[in-house]
């Protein structure tokens, strides 16, 4: 392992610079898509589009933000795909979900770099991203789809918001967990590091591996 994961002062490197950049390209583009999308979703939220420069500008930029988001999700797939595959440990984690929700973390099995919930978030965003991208292409320019291919547009009209709603559910849980519940998680995706205690608490199997690898290097 070329990169040093164990840092001085009791810190552990959790996300590399590239991973953080990738996360925030996806994050910023997603938030823009979410806000403009919600404006088009409900008349009660149309004011968001007005605040963001007007409905027309929002409609012009929304698909381009979608392209950025889609490619950042593909980037994530290239980088994180192998780490996101399900393991036996994940099944135990799902069984302990009620404990996890109640903050009874002593009852939760040791977790890899990404726990089963994070893996679900990843795959959910990936597959919804694919659906949103494909349906978004159909809806992008109204004159791209002829009247004879109207069924494509009618499928896209219903699938695009369904996929978007699924990502909103994932997004709400993700932001809630990352900012309010697991204190230190937000910092890890900004500065990159976490405390050893944090690593041992939430991703013990990963931390143990990091420590072992560090020992092997020396």
């Amino acid at each position: 392992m070329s990169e040093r994961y164990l840092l001085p002062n009791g810190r552990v490197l959790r996300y590399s610079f590239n991973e953080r950049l990738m996360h925030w390209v996806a994050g910023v583009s997603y938030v823009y898509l979410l806000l403009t999308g919600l404006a088009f979703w409900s008349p009660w939220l149309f004011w968001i589009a007005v605040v963001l420069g007007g409905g027309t500008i929002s409609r012009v930029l929304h698909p381009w933000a979608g392209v950025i988001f889609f490619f950042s999700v593909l980037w994530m797939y290239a980088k994180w795909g192998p780490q996101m595959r399900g393991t036996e440990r994940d099944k135990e984690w799902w069984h302990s979900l009620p404990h996890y929700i109640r903050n009874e973390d002593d009852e939760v099995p040791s977790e890899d770099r990404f726990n089963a919930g994070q893996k679900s978030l990843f795959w959910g965003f990936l597959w919804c991203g694919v659906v949103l991208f494909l349906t978004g292409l159909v809806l992008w320019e109204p004159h791209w789809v002829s009247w004879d291919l109207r069924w494509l547009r009618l499928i896209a009209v219903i699938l695009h918001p369904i996929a978007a709603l699924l990502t909103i559910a994932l997004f709400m849980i993700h932001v809630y967990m990352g900012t309010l519940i697991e204190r230190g998680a937000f910092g890890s995706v900004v500065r990159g590091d976490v405390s050893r205690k944090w690593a041992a608490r939430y991703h013990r199997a990963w931390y143990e591996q990091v420590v072992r690898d560090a020992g092997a290097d020396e």
Partner: protein
Amino acid sequence: MSQANLEIRRISGHAGPVPGAGVKREFEVAKLVDTTTCIGCKACEVACLEWNGLNFTDTTFDNSYQTMPETAWNYWNLIKFDEQHVMADASLVSYDDSKAGGGGSLMLLMRKDQCMHCAEPGCLEACPADGAIVQYANGIVDFQQEHCIGCGYCISGCPFDVPKFSPQSRKVFKCTLCVDRVSEGLEPACIKACPTGCLHFGTKPEMQELAETRAKQLRDVSGFTNAGVYDPLGVGGTHVIYVLHDVNNPEAYGGLPKDPRIPWTVKLWKYPLKWIGNLAMLGGLVGLGVHYLRFGPKTVKEDDDVKEIKKEGPQP
């Protein structure tokens, strides 16, 4: 093309009540197109361009009298020409099918195609932009381009392929039923130009009565036993109605849909999905808030560090 002096019945993408609804006394208007007396002169097409100040555009020749295949963002009124055969039972059969079956006499159908001004407009249902589409109490459905965001969802909502997107301006356009003329007590430009009297304009009940009278005449006197009025209920009736020689086969008239409805995916998205989605999003936010109040943040314990496994070396 905002008409401040007309009462508004519905507004697209609008939160809250519709201003002024039910205040003024309004008649519902309708345009009657009698396809049986149209001669295909296209005076209505020219009058539409003239009145609305639209540029003259190239026509497309396709072995037909038709000006172009479809209406366009800058060509809102198009007569559709169809060669059909009238069979012995007064039904219409397409030219190719009648050759196979034999018999029938050739007839050139001419139908003036434009926005139907549905009582339940799919374009307005699908539109997310506040005020981009309005329906006046007189039944006219009008696009307000200054509020249009160019998303093209109206095109998905319309069962008649009427709204047309202009890539240059990124806005959608269609027939206004000459709302600017009608609001001043004038008839639409196409009606004014029609030389045969196949186009009529008046209140909806008047036009329905006239249409039924004409259809009866066609059935009783002219031998068109399937003649009838096209005023499709799937979209709540329309403010453009047709008299057809064969009301059972509207598709023969340049693809007029037999039972037009707002597409079910648009309905599903605008009604159940919108409510399920809104409740789910609100429920999610409330749920997370309650979770935080009940359980609060996770905490890292002081003895969490794993000193004992440090530098044990790689595991198999």
